[in-house]
């Protein structure tokens, strides 16, 4: 599913909104999550999951093309941890049996 498909899907469920308004709302949603992460904050949506910022340590890596050793500074990366409901829904259709704990 692409952003445009999500948009169409939402638009169908909110007939009072114009397509443009629906798009604006959707943009607000993701912009808000992004902005929170940029501030180093966590976004927790029960059932769906939580977005947070994780720190990666500085390390030495290699340029895969030249084999040259380069140092990679410590950095922060966005991280998503799926919530319980989402985890279960996705895994329900899993290959194999229902998992045990």
């Amino acid at each position, binding site marked *: 599913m692409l952003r445009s498909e*999500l948009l169409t899907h*939402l638009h169908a469920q909110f007939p009072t909104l114009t397509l443009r308004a629906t798009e604006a709302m959707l943009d607000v949603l993701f912009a808000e999550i992004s902005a929170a992460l940029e501030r180093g904050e966590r*976004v927790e949506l029960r059932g769906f999951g939580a977005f947070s910022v*994780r*720190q990666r340590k500085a390390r030495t890596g290699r340029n895969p093309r030249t084999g040259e050793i380069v140092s990679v500074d410590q950095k922060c990366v966005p991280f998503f941890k799926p919530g319980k409901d989402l985890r279960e829904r996705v*895994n329900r*259709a*899993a290959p194999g049996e229902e998992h045990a704990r």
Partner: protein
Amino acid sequence: MTETTITRVELVEALLASAETGRSKLSRQECARFLEAALESISQTLAAGDVVKLSRFGNFVVRAKRQRVGRNPKTGKAVAITPRRVVTFRPSPMLRQQVGAAPRGQKRL
């Protein structure tokens, strides 16, 4: 890990603020319904095993994990972890850059 946590409440608030400036007005309740509809649509797609690609934000991908041997951290006993499907989020380069460049207080972790 972090001090502040954003929840549905704040997201609905943001939607409401934008809905008020827009031409088509939505109530707080409708904004909440909008948020749920968006999350539900994403969840449904993932449950069906499909990818959700949100340009400028990131992609949600379903990955299949093979069976492996894990350990009960309490008892130390080896147990089989059954094959499963998990959701991973791959942030867009734009979001990565936004977050990576963010001024952060002192080091966490």
